[in-house]
């Protein structure tokens, strides 16, 4: 039988506010346990939540960027359950009336553009962390993360493969970073997702029973976990079994999902409006203000790059994957004053390669757009060859020096003086009579050998065009 996979994602993006969603405590990552939890975060008796306006601002930015309805009135609700890292015994979230309503996002997967509907996005507070190691059989609680603002972004079950799910997640990841509402740091858990996965016979309208895979914190894990889960469900169904609705955890070590809790034992969260917080009202004027401040979004930027720089769709989408990369590219182009394709090749090639190797972010690059532009200028004006440029690039990467200084100091300037090149050519032809004979008797491939010898003799500084121009007539005699 042919099976179709159905996937919906719930993405949790930690909002990049300085303080928590309902208290003034800092949200900075990595502090000593329980030093960033104030009376409100600890859930002491008598304390009350006060909504962080910046978190609302960020949620609205996201909503506008996905073309969603922003609720004029939304409501915070209490989600009740007991857990030691949940200090109040309830999480403040949004249930019936979320701040961001229906929106959508276009993704590209398998060379196809696809529109994914986003059901809603709502504000909520994160819980603390339970630490099960290092306490001799007891558990430790760290409440630093308790009260950190999250935007939970819920998609419709619109994705049909793990690749689509990953493309969607990457797109959201790119978007929240463009909007500067989330740092996107997946290792620190600032961006994570739950995947709802089901399968159904191809052509069937009704959805199959789904399993929810919790807490996936890398794109790779999303892909692997979904693929594993799809295989598991298909195997189960084909061997006559049924899928149970349950929550599963993905274990990256064994590349398997295993059940966490089933629906039967799931909590009744007893949601109800939080009486400590008034309904959140958003004025139309505020929306206009936020809309005016929205940056150019990834899709808009990608389209502009295609138009303005005559780039291919693929190049433009790679270069606009992050705002920092796009800014870097544009700075390089403007420094160089054109040559958009050359810039694209260098940014996506040598620069991206070097960054990857060192596991650096483009913002951390030792060579900024101005420096790279300066280097590329010297290729364009033929001061150096592309090959020498790579050598200069490596030197710039190490020292942070400008291209011109390196070219000067190391004497890497290209030899374009035909007299000088001619002398070298003559010497090489004289030194290689056997190869000359072979060439002249029809072994054309030996041209490369002679070019190589000339370049070697000039340490690569001879202008390759000039070498070819002078060498061929001499070889032919």
């Amino acid at each position, binding site marked *: 039988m042919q099976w179709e996979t159905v996937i919906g994602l719930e993405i949790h993006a930690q909002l990049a506010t300085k303080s928590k969603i309902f208290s003034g405590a800092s949200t900075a990552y990595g502090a000593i346990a329980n030093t960033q939890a104030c009376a409100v975060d600890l859930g002491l008796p*008598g304390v009350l939540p006060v909504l962080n306006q910046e978190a609302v601002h960020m949620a609205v930015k996201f909503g506008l960027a996905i073309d969603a309805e922003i609720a004029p009135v939304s409501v915070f609700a209490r989600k009740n359950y007991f857990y030691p890292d949940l200090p109040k*015994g309830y999480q403040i979230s949004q249930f019936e009336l979320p701040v961001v309503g229906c929106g959508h996002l276009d993704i590209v997967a398998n060379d196809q553009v696809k529109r994914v509907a986003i059901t809603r996005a709502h504000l909520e507070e994160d819980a603390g962390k339970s630490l099960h190691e290092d306490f001799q059989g007891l558990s430790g609680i760290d409440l630093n993360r308790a009260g950190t603002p999250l935007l939970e972004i819920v998609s419709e079950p619109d994705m049909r493969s793990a690749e689509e799910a990953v493309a969607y997640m990457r797109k959201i990841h790119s978007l929240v970073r463009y909007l500067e509402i989330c740092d996107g740091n997946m290792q620190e858990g600032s961006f994570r997702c739950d995947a709802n996965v089901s399968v159904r016979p191809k052509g069937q309208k009704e959805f199959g029973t789904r399993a929810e895979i919790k807490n996936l914190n890398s794109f790779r894990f999303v892909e692997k976990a979904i693929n594993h889960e799809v295989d598991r469900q298909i195997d189960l169904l084909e061997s006559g079994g049924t899928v149970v609705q349950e929550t599963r955890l993905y274990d990256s070590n064994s590349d398997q999902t295993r059940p966490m809790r089933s629906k039967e034992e799931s909590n009744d969260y007893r949601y109800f409006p939080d*009486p400590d917080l008034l309904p959140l009202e958003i004025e139309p004027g505020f929306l206009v203000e936020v809309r005016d401040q929205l940056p150019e979004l990834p899709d808009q930027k990608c389209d502009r790059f295609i138009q303005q720089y005559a780039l291919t769709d693929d190049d433009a989408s790679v270069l606009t994957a992050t705002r920092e990369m796009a800014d870097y590219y544009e700075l390089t182009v403007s420094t160089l004053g054109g040559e958009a394709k050359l810039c694209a090749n260098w940014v996506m090639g040598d620069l991206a390669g070097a960054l990857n190797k060192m596991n650096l972010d483009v913002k951390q690059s030792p060579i900024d757009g101005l420096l790279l532009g300066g280097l590329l200028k010297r290729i364009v004006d033929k001061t150096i060859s592309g090959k020498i440029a790579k050598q200069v690039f490596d030197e710039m990467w190490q020292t942070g020096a400008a291209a011109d200084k390196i070219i000067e100091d190391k004497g890497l300037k290209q030899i374009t003086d035909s007299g000088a090149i001619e002398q070298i050519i003559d010497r090489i032809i004289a030194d290689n009579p056997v190869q000359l004979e072979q060439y002249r008797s029809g072994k054309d491939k030996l041209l490369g050998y002679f070019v190589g010898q000339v370049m070697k003799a000039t340490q690569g500084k001879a202008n390759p065009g000039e070498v070819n121009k002078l060498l061929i007539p001499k070889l032919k005699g």
Partner: protein
Amino acid sequence: MYNKTIAEISAGLQKRDFSSEEITQAYLSRIKQHDEQLNCFISITEEFALAAAKNADQRLAKGESGGLIGVPIAHKDIFCTRDVKTSCASKMLDNFYAPYDATVVEQMNQAGCVMLGKLNMDEFAMGSSNETSFYGPVRNPWDQGCVPGGSSGGSAAAVSARLIPAATGTDTGGSIRQPAAFCGVTGLKPTYGRVSRYGMIAFASSLDQGGPLTRTAQDAAIMLQAMAGFDTRDSTSVDHPVDDYVSTLNRSLDGLKIGLPKEYFDDRLDTDIRRCVDEAIHEFTKLGAHVREVSLPNINLSVPVYYVVASAECSANLSRFDGVRYGYRCENPFDLDDLYSRSRGEAFGAEVKRRILMGTYALSTGYYDAYYLKAQKVRRLISEDFRQVFADVDILAAPTAPSTAFPIGAKTNDPISMYLSDIYTIAVNLAGIPAVSLPVGCVNNKPVGMQLIGNFFSEERLLNAAHQYQSVTDWHMRLPQGFE
């Protein structure tokens, strides 16, 4: 020395008739003399009080004036006080010391009040008789075999017995007004949002409101002046200007339109209480007020609505008491569920458990619409009833409670009958409007209270009316026997 109002104490302090330290000592010794019997106090903070009194005397010596500088008071043990135990009258918090002051406590400290201690109450403010306290019941000074009402029973009894001139309390369904009525004192429940709830341990967040219990309306005005105001730490507090409650006390009541809701005066009302209330209303007409009958058609639904809404909210509010971070923890829990169930099972009293269970039930899947949602709808109808009558009249007058103080133990095994003792007070909380209860008579030597109910932020008018009534009557001056 002890039989003084705030206004009298303040005048005496300003004239140097006595120092704050002296009057503080006087009240402390009176507490020592009587509180073993009455059980009004959970904590007596003598050292804190004497230090605060000295500080107040210095402020007075510098020529500072302010109606509350150097005046002894005590807080209901629901308000968090830094470094002083805040128990909420529960075993759960018997070991709890808050690292911060509630906004109300902070405000009273700034105003110069001297805190003598923390007052007994029903556990987590759940009760109408002060019998659910972990620290035992408070006795009514008028009849020590009777309850003082609740939940602010310690506050009302202490003011009534002149152990303190004034106290703070909280009112979720009548918890200031009903004990004020039972103990013959004046108790004001302000508009929801008028007084900050920050640091006031939550029972039912959408209903809870702090307010004063005092001997007179004038004192209530002085207290409210210090307590009222917008607090950025409480999202439900309202940024509305605070009126001058004191300077408007003497306005004439000529032409004041008083509505009498007929639902409060039907044949279920005790005839003796009715007589007292009627006499009080007659005094108001003599002061120039016009009286007319009005109707609040949905008011009879108040009690069921309240027990759904308040219980639902409390079931979540009390989840934080889990034995993990503070408060009571059972011994040697063998796993997490055991930690939760035994800590909560051992530390919460029966009434608190009953309300948590009721609330949990009302919010559960399959029951939410029928209970919680329905209750919220009816709540809006009740609010609407009030909105309509206030289009026609300025204030309402009604009995505060259906009976006078009842004997200790009389209703402990009958929760429904206990719940019905708040039948006249609850609607005001559901609507979020203010009301003041004042003593208007005695039946069998037990006080009777009448409440004046006003529209949002009409505390000034309510206190004005109450003060005018107290200017021509003396029920509020009477002392219970044995406490003269």
